[in-house]
């Protein structure tokens, strides 16, 4: 970019925008043209409406015991697919941890060195961590905040006195968690399941951590416990489904009786797998938020 003068840069920039606009118009035309070849909207003669979907619906209850055909499909017929999805979430958590935690450690080392050099910053930090009472007692010097470099590092030091948020969260969080557990446990009976219920539970955790501070959440959901919960859930899922490799790979029946369809304790392994997926999703949601909000979990 150093090789061009400003006028040439402007021309190049404009040329890029015009080319991109032409490309986008062409893409839109091609996509809309292709859409006309699809089967019409909501029409019953859809090519996807074949023997596979028929099999999932007509013999789904006998074979999986789940009233919710989608749950029966994703956790019984296509259980390996869902296992892969859970592993994608797990891998994403690990990647986010690698990206955000490693940087923090090297940075804090740098800051410790820097604060050794000039004692003023260090004393400022100690006063804040000792008092930690209210917003007014934070140091107002601009240099202090510039030294932090990262706005998010200021936030955990403020003890929040947000009465409205705290009061509402006190009432709302238990109900949110209860609803999430309901959605997970009824995954084979009603709309929902491990993914949606886990997302609800995770958002309940996020609300609790915003209202009451991360320190209180850390008592039961820290890096160690979240890792153990995720690992154990994935391991249970893996062991519950991978035995079919040894029994001929086309035999996905478990020894657990299917029970009467519609009862809460029915449909064999699906309930257990839903709980596993729910744990994984809840831990992932909370750890994403925690890692991005304050840089650690």
């Amino acid at each position: 970019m150093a090789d061009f003068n400003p006028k040439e840069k402007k021309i190049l920039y404009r040329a890029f925008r015009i080319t991109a606009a032409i490309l986008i118009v062409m893409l839109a035309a091609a996509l809309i043209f292709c859409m006309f070849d699809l089967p019409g909207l909501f029409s019953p003669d859809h090519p996807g409406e074949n023997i596979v979907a028929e099999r999932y619906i007509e013999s789904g209850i006998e074979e999986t015991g789940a009233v919710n055909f989608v749950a029966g499909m994703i956790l019984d017929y296509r259980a390996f697919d869902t296992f892969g999805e859970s592993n994608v979430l797990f891998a994403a958590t690990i990647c986010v941890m690698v990206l955000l935690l490693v940087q923090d450690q090297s940075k804090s080392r740098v800051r410790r060195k820097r604060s050794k050099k000039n004692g003023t910053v260090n004393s400022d930090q100690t006063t804040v961590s000792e008092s930690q009472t209210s917003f007014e007692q934070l140091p107002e010097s601009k240099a202090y905040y510039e030294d932090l470099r990262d706005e998010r590092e200021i936030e955990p030091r403020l003890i929040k006195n947000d009465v409205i948020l705290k009061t509402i969260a006190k009432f709302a969080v238990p109900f949110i968690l209860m609803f999430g557990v309901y959605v997970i446990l009824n995954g084979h009976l009603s709309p929902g399941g491990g993914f949606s219920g886990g997302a609800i539970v995770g958002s309940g955790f996020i609300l609790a951590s915003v209202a009451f501070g991360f320190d209180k959440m850390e008592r039961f959901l820290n890096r160690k416990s979240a890792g153990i919960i995720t690992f154990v859930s994935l391991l249970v899922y893996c062991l519950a489904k991978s035995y079919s490799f040894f029994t001929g790979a086309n035999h996905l029946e478990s020894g657990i009786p299917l029970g009467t369809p519609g009862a809460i304790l029915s449909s064999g392994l699906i309930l257990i797998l839903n709980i596993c997926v729910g744990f994984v999703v809840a831990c992932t949601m909370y750890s994403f938020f925690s890692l991005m909000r304050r840089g650690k979990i």
Partner: protein
Amino acid sequence: MFEQIYNHFNDIVAAILFVIGFSNLLFQKNLIKKIIGLNIMDVAIYLLLASQGYISGRLAPILTDGSENATTYINPIPSGLVLTGIVVSVSVTALMLSMTIRLYRKYRTLDLDEILVKVRKEKEDKGEG
């Protein structure tokens, strides 16, 4: 022509949403806005899958009134595919956001052009020094 557009209304809306997201990827300089564009593209795919999976007059694939007839319910496969798409999109979004956080920490800006200029300057400094 008009009837054909009406017949494929949802699909065309999905295509237009996809193109809007793609143009966000190309035209926006801000990294966060690029990520929002990618999410709009994801939403377009969900809309296409969900509208292709629905058949008028049929029920959601959950047993109602004891009917086990395949013509009573819609196809459960597109619903499962949308679920897969949502999970992957959440993971990808989290990954991109954390990369953006790291870029912001290093270069103190979200503008991709400024970041590229700074990277080039850094490389030149290293080459000279």
